[in-house]
């Protein structure tokens, strides 16, 4: 177990920032309590000895699923932009990106 994960509660505001979701003060308070309860519950997995156990990432044991390298038509520009909240000149428009 990572050293900084024992019995610490989730910093809800930090995690929300990582997930790019603003939380208002009321939400943050509510979520903090709820998440503390949930994290406390899921922490019970630490009781188990999982030494040497392979992790399961997929529910089915298959491998090497490929497609052949063939180009196929996709959407037209109009179709591609049909759901865009903001568009101009064939592009999706976002607030100015500062690099």
């Amino acid at each position, binding site marked *: 177990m990572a050293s900084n994960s024992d019995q610490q509660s989730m910093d809800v505001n930090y995690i929300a920032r990582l997930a790019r979701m603003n939380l208002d003060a009321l939400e943050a308070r509510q979520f903090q309590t709820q998440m503390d309860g949930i994290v406390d519950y899921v922490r019970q997995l630490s009781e188990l000895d999982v030494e040497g156990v392979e992790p399961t990432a*997929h529910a089915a044991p298959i491998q090497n699923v*490929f497609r052949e*390298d*063939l180009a196929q038509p*996709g959407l037209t520009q109009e179709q*591609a932009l049909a759901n865009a909240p903001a568009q101009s000149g064939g592009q999706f428009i976002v607030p100015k990106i500062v690099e």
Partner: protein
Amino acid sequence: MSAARYEAVIGLEVHVQLKTRSKMFCGCATSFGAEPNTNVCPVCLGYPGTMPVMNREAIRLTVLSGLMLGCRINPRSKFDRKSYFYPDMPKNYQITQYDQPLCLGGGVEIEGASGLATVPLTRIHLEEDVAKNMHFATCSGVDFNRAGSPLMEIVSEPAMHTPEQAVAYLQGLKQTLMYAGVSDCNLEEGNMRCDVNVSLRPVGATALGTKAELKNLNSFKSVLLALRAEIGRQEQLLREGGRVVQETRRWDVEAGATFLMRTKEDAHDYRYFPEPDLMPVVLSEQQIAEWARGLPETPRQRRARFASEYSLPEYDARVLAADKAVGDYFEAAARGSKAPKIVSNWVMTEMLRRLGETGQEIAAVQITPAALAELVELTEAGAINSNTARELFGELFANGGSPRALVEARGLAQVSDSGALQALVDQAIRENAKSAEDFRGGKAVALKFLTGQVMRLSRGKANPQLAAQLLEERLKK
């Protein structure tokens, strides 16, 4: 102020776009320069419900690159999600390979001050490219045509110590990948991109210092200059008793300096985990061997072959094999030529000089390898003199055509008939009495001048050896 001397430690992360017809995880075309958002589909736009499917060819090209670079091919490899939010990301996670990349180890051979050396690689993995952002006055635009194109990332060990080594590494890597035929590797066009990590440590120390990551390096020259500037910055900082902070810095060509982009404090937490929509890639030895059978020659193999097959000096073989296209051209001209060394001379001097002057690609020059071979044949047979040959080369380089036809059409054949030359010899002596005197008085160089005059009078067609011989005979009388 510290008087310590410092050594730079440099590692490179190079991203290379693979030459596939379709994108990494969907069937959209990878052709570039199309109207914005026309090579897109629900998958590469990150639409809800869509799923990636691996392009077999991208896997093959990555394995091929790994084999060319002497990597170990991972028998079991997988894809992972790397999460961060940015407008060029269709899903706000990138499908990449975290802890089980396709290739491990390997190296790139570079030519350094002390001969050939190998820069070791850490790994090569495969991932999807991001979209392109365009910046306007008050907003930015996003074009997803490039999003999802297969991108190979080649990570070197922090094993280089000078900016020149870093550039040599890039050039060597580029050549191997060109030999492999997996990418166009053009830095300016962005199908080869590189990030550089650099740190300093006192000479003799083994522990690594704190590194800075440099971005926006879109030419070999930028890599060189940015590294020089950054090493200088870090060295000054250390000498003044300061500390290097782990950060990402942006190279500014105009300013000729690097500028802070972000520090470690706002570094990303990428939250890697295995991509549940893709199954692992398991490569049998049999499969790898099958792909290896189609492996092209490496630059090193070609160098050795040029030296033995065409009896070239080691130096020639190295220059010619350093660039795949140059080597290809040489070989096309030299194959079947009786004088491959002369072909080599032409390619290494006239050709490379003119390519440098005009900025042309050797693959696209007007003078065909067959024409060069013919030109060499004409000079070797004494049909034209070397002046004419050089002139013809210029003509062929600019406009193409057949050397033999040009020689005939313009009457450029070398005049080696002593009867025809005698009159010109006499005329030269008559018109340059002073030089004739000088020669007779023992000034040997005067003969060179007179020979030049005969060449001029013959409009370059005279056989210079014969002209000199006739002059000497006449003046010694």
